[in-house]
């Protein structure tokens, strides 16, 4: 019930931002369609803690600046490798993840892929490890450092 309310509110805000027409009829219809979409999603069974991880979504702005800085840094690193393809020393490393929820693990894997130079190839939910393909030693080793892991675990709350 709470999930349906949150989802309806989010979808309605999105509709309000995109619509640009604010008359009584259209506002009502917009609300009805947001509610309908939420009900269909609830019937599909995707509106659980995994499908709508509010804890992570609400804390996301805290890491945004740090993430943007990391992305810019590794962008530069990958551009250097592209200009000199011989310097690429690809590696596969397995990164330990300390996240407790599946949504947290997915966020961690997505952050790893989001920073160029590292791509998460396989995620093991049972052993809590992420197999990462790094473009060079530097990227692969940087991924092993617990920095990003801590930030993502911080997103999960307790």
């Amino acid at each position: 019930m709470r999930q349906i309310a949150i989802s309806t509110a989010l979808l309605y805000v999105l509709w309000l931002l995109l619509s640009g027409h604010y008359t009584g009829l259209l506002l009502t219809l917009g609300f009805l369609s947001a509610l309908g979409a939420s009900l269909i999603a609830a019937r599909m069974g995707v509106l659980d803690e995994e499908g709508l991880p509010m804890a992570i979504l609400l804390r996301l702005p805290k890491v945004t600046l740090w993430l943007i800085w990391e992305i810019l840094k590794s962008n530069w690193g990958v551009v250097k490798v592209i200009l000199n393809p011989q310097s690429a020393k690809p590696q596969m490393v397995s990164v330990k993840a300390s996240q407790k929820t599946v949504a947290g693990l997915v966020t961690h894997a997505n952050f790893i892929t989001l920073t160029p130079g590292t791509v998460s190839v396989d995620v093991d939910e049972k052993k809590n490890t992420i197999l990462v393909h790094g473009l060079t030693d530097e990227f692969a080793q940087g991924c092993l450092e617990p920095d990003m892991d801590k930030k993502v675990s911080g997103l999960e709350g307790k």
Partner: protein
Amino acid sequence: MSVSVLIDIIGMVSLCVGSLAVIFGALGLLRLGDVYQRMHGTGIVDTGGAGLILFGLLMVSPDWTVTVRLILIGFILVMTGPTATHAIARAVRVSGEEPDNVKTGRKKAAKGGRK
């Protein structure tokens, strides 16, 4: 007046740097060795290139509805880009293709990097 000129200049610089990033990403897609490495080229297009170009457009956006749409496009690209890349990477791995230059085999590669 001077502030708006400054914002315009930031937008232009951001657009130009973003264009360079996109070209470098596509170049990486063309030049790097195997399919795993080429994914990093796509990563540049999806993050650096798209981010900088959208930021540049954001700086010169005429009104708030445009701003909302730009932020939404950026959000969607950031959410779906890595997911699609991960899906491709996983599909390549399931298909049995091994990355170049990684000497260890599949089992060893999974253990190799652990500290």
